[in-house]
């Protein structure tokens, strides 16, 4: 099984187009960092303008606010919505791409089972997702910390502000990246399922993005009937639950409780639902692939 995984990874990482995703991410992160490096204070003023009626902010606070941790949060907020496309580029190609090239025959005329092949391709997609997130962590977290330094992290919400001491932040990023890995793996599993149904790699990539787009719109819409019936079961609703690690509990005096998460059960429930989706997509992929006639 490990040898088969090695083959899949070799195929993914020997293709030049795989690196388009890494290049695109680097370009976006560097553009954000560059803009904030030269004009960060204007961005902070813009962020705080919505809260200026309720809070008074000192100049020192404003200066400290713009640090590596905040910039990483801004980058994650921007990029984690776009990353499903980058994941779909690889996972959507995994079966359909091989079918269109004819190399699926090359694999399926060997003594490996179709379920094994799906597992291996899924595992390779997961490794790709982890590599993307590691790359993002290097660029967004490490890069921003090196460029802007560290300080307390302040996260703005519609209900107010969340403040975390700087030595209480790093573990939250680790947890957030871990959660993002589950969220993006869900997209990879969906893309793999759609790839089984197609013989052209463009179809599953577009279909994955369409599903993510429609579900995201539904998740964001404020329609009461959907709030309790549909939204809780859309995987896109739960993909943004990584932010929960940056929402903290306050003590009686309003000070942040170190190491706290405002609603950990909700975050864990979201992770559970995403894992359920992954299992469902994977099982369906295997079921359909085992019955599929390979005609290409």
């Amino acid at each position, binding site marked *: 099984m490990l*040898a*088969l995984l*090695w*083959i899949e990874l*070799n*195929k993914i990482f*020997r*293709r030049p187009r795989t690196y388009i995703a890494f290049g695109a991410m680097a370009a976006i992160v560097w553009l954000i960092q560059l803009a904030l490096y030269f004009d960060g204070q204007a961005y902070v003023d813009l962020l705080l303008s919505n809260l200026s009626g309720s809070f008074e902010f000192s100049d020192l606070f404003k200066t400290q606010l713009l640090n590596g941790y905040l910039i990483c949060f801004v980058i994650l907020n921007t990029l984690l919505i776009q990353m499903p496309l980058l994941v779909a580029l690889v996972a959507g190609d995994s079966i359909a791409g091989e079918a269109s*090239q*004819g*190399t699926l*025959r*090359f*694999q*399926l*005329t*060997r*003594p*490996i*089972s179709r379920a094994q092949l799906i597992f291996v391709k899924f595992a390779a997609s997961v490794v790709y997702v982890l590599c993307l997130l590691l790359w993002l962590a290097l660029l967004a977290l490490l890069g921003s910390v090196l460029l802007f330094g560290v300080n307390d992290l302040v996260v703005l919400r519609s209900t107010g502000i969340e403040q975390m001491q700087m030595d209480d932040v790093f573990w939250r990023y680790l947890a957030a990246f871990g959660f993002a890995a589950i969220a993006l793996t869900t997209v990879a599993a969906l893309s793999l399922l759609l790839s089984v149904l197609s013989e052209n790699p463009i179809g599953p990539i577009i279909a994955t993005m369409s599903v993510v787009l429609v579900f995201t719109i539904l998740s964001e819409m404020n329609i009461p009937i959907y709030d309790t019936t549909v939204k809780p079961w859309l995987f896109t609703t739960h993909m943004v639950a990584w932010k929960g690690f940056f929402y903290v509990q306050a003590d009686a005096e309003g000070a942040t409780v170190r190491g706290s998460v405002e609603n950990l059960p909700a975050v864990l429930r979201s992770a559970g639902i995403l894992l359920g989706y992954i299992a469902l997509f994977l099982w369906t992929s295997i079921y359909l692939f085992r*019955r599929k*006639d*390979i*005609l290409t």
Partner: protein
Amino acid sequence: MEPLVRVSHLSKRFGSFEAVRDISFEVNRGQVYGFLGQNGAGKSTTLRMIMTLIRPTAGSIEVFGLNLEQHRKEILRQVGAVIEKPDHYGYLSAYENLRMAAVLCGIHPSREKLMQQLDFVGLADRAKSPVKTFSQGMKQRLGIATALVHDPALIILDEPTNGLDPQGIADIRDLIRRLSRDHQKTLIVSSHLLSEIELIADSLLILHKGEKRIEGKMNELLNPAETIVELELGNKAAASILLQQTEWIGSVDWRSDLQCCVRMPKNRIPELVRLLSEADISVHAVASKHSLEYYFLQLTQTETHVGPAVD
């Protein structure tokens, strides 16, 4: 002797289209078994079913005495195949593609062993070249190398000479002969060209529109004593009577007012020409074809079913 491959009442339906209809055949150990038929006759569909790429609608396949559905992995460990055109990873080298095929078969041969395989198909000097730079013939030979990498007992080659130039065709033919003669492999080779199959196969099965039409040993099917003679004659009415009255004439098939095909013993062609001349029937042309070629041409040129299937 237990056959290596036993196909029983195999059918495949795609919606309302029946691609393969109730075909049965057996391939014995050490044979080169030819699969002949036009494009769309059902050859590739049948071979894909043997390689488990397609699920049969009905029927069963046994390979090495084992049921294919129940012992798929065990069987495929001993089978190598190139189905339709060989497809490889173009951005990888020939050596890397071959190594990948080996790993997929669960083996990890040494570099020396893999290079020997490439040498066997004449690609050792291009081992490091990306496959996308290969000609069709080289890809075909690499396809055969990947099919042989795990030293299978049964090799299935679907249209292995398709798209090749005459030299490429000769190379593949030579390769098939060597596999059979020097390595005692059993091969199933499909083609739409009788001339190709004739040169390499010991046994033959002709498929037409998903049905089996002929199966048998080549030396029996290509009976040198029996022939089809194409005649171009001057007087159809008189010639018809004469041909009907001649007892060693098997069958007569008039294709136009001037042309007919006659099934007869080959050694009596001079006698037939003499009889026609004596009856004042002018003979403009005489051409002899063996009966299988005639049968196959009839299948491919017309929709008419000629004669009973020979099983």
